[in-house]
């Protein structure tokens, strides 16, 4: 319990710091926000009115106070380029990004962990026949090659610039081969024939909930390429990390005892080592989650995906301080909350961590 309250207080402190830092950064954005908002042809009187509306006249501490209380009330300011409330904009854009990130995270676990397991198993000499006969030697090279290719693949996946991968995949599978749509979230024509009712703003989920099959079909087809591109980094990192964590666990004294009680190498890995190794893996997943949210900025740019990233880049090009601040706060909040959740989950997985 003490751990929990301490951890919550810590998170609150960090969030406060994030908000303060964000505020400072947005105050440094070049250009006059009033001019951006009112347009270049506004009269001085109009500008004064806009300034008052945006709260620009007040002193800095005063502005910070207004900003913080605004955040708490749900008033995140008005976007200078969409002219809607920042929170409203984000609440439609964030789910689209989360759709991508969610797919990437699922793939990271479903593909990355088994890949790491395979690498660790081969590295430890799994399936080795005893004695170094001719075939034993071949087997050794085979295992080394197998582990090597797992490592090379995962390292390649973390080294490829995500925008390059996005461009390459889009060019090959969408533009050249035509297997998948080039860009967008779903075919916009469907808005006339079978309009989508927004419940959660997660297109696939909404389509599923409302039984909108044409949109679902189109949305899934549109999702494949960006989701795969997004998954490359997480899958690579998770494969690397789970391989390393499993190898470390299998060198622990308990692994020897488990083998001494008749469990094979693979059984020790899957049934005994995976759980203690999942602590560091979870912490990594939290990091990767936050990183992917930012990677989504680049992928959304390429695939014209209506998510947080596209919103942010539009905000950047138009020096839209409130929108940039909003996006920053949301991503940082997500990071803090994810880390908090991970810490709590770790306490469940590892009995040594006390709540």
């Amino acid at each position, binding site marked *: 319990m003490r751990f929990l309250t301490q951890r919550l207080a810590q998170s609150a402190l960090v969030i406060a*710091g994030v908000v303060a830092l964000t505020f400072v950064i947005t105050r440094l954005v070049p250009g006059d926000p009033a001019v951006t908002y009112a347009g270049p042809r506004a009269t001085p009187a109009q500008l004064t009115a806009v300034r008052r509306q945006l709260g620009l006249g007040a002193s800095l501490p005063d502005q910070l106070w207004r900003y913080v209380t605004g955040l708490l009330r749900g008033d995140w300011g008005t976007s200078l380029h969409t002219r809607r409330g920042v929170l409203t904009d984000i609440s439609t854009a964030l789910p689209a990004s989360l759709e991508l990130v969610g797919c990437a995270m699922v793939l990271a676990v479903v593909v990355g962990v088994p890949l790491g397991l395979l690498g660790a198993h081969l590295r430890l000499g799994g399936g080795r026949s005893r004695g170094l006969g001719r075939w034993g030697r071949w087997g050794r090279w085979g295992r080394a090659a197998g582990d090597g290719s797992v490592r090379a693949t995962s390292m390649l996946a*973390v*080294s490829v*610039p995500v925008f390059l991968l996005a461009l390459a995949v889009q060019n090959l599978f969408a533009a*050249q081969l035509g297997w998948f749509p080039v860009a967008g979230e779903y075919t916009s024509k469907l808005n006339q024939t079978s309009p989508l009712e927004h419940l959660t703003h997660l297109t696939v989920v909404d389509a599923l909930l409302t039984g909108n099959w044409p949109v679902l079909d189109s949305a899934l087809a549109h999702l494949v390429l960006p989701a795969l591109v997004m998954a490359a980094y997480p899958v690579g990192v998770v494969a690397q990390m789970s391989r390393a964590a499993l190898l*470390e666990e299998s060198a622990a004294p308990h692994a020897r005892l488990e083998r001494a009680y008749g469990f094979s190498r693979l059984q020790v890995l899957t049934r005994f080592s995976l759980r203690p190794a999942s602590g560091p893996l979870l912490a990594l997943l939290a990091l990767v989650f*936050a990183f992917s949210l930012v990677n989504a900025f680049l992928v959304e740019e390429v695939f014209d995906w209506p998510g947080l990233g596209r919103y*942010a880049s539009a905000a950047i090009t138009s020096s839209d301080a409130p929108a*940039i601040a909003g996006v920053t706060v949301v991503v940082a909040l997500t990071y*803090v909350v994810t880390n908090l959740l991970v810490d709590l989950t770790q306490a469940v997985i590892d009995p040594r961590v006390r709540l």
Partner: protein
Amino acid sequence: MTDVSPTLAPPAPAPDRSAPPTPAARGGQARRLLALARRDLPATVGAVVLLAIVLAAVLAPWLAPYPGDGSHATHPLDTLAGPGGRHWFGTDAVGRDLLTRVMYGARTSLTVAAAVLTVSALVGVPLGVIAGYTGGVVKDVIMRITDVFLAFPALLLSVALATVLHPGTGSAIIAISVGWWPWYARMACVTATGIRSRGFVDAARCLGVSRIRIMARHVLPNALTPVLVQLSLDAGGVILTSAALSYLGLGPQEPTAEWGLMVQQGQDLFITDWWVVAFPGLAILLTAFCFNVLGEGLRSALDPHRELTR
């Protein structure tokens, strides 16, 4: 008692006959390096390729076929030529030789990476060592500050800052560094906390060695190994981040040769003139890959506990 030598006269105890350690492997640095290279082939290949990239970058003004194309020169009559004899990597939309620009791009990327990592390590490591060794309130304050910076993913903080600063190489360096140093602070803090409770630090404290000296001579040197590994692993990350920043138009601007920027400018031509995107893109991939392989190699070479994880 001023002179202790008499009392310290050797009591001639039985010589310590416990297993004598094998004498330190004598041999030149070169031989040790060679032995290391034989043990980890991938890391060696990575290091060699990186060396080639660094040489290409440093010697670009002399090695590049069209040094002028590294910056302002344009050749309106030679646009979008495919890879071939005169232009190995082809030319871009304004006729500049892509091989030349990729080589100059290496200068930009490596400069950014070196600068970011230097700044991050120089700021982060001492802060982390101080926090970890001192502990208590000092540690709390330093670590909460790093937590705030860590909460902004590096790329996002860079995005936010690059919009504020005038886009360019310098601003990219600052922007990425701001988001990067906390990792080093955090890592150094964890390591220093561990070192603080080790016997040799206690022994130094009991001898009355000063705090600053303990941190500088005992804690810091023993905290550097993970930092070194991380620097190599991070170099790839910084190159990817700076490329992403440039790709979003927040890094160096035309006519500076920068890989991410080159990809961004060429992306609309990808279908028709693939080389415009492919070569700078592959340059990013290759450099990041080599740094990662080298970093992994260093990790297993320097960290004996991880012998198995190679």
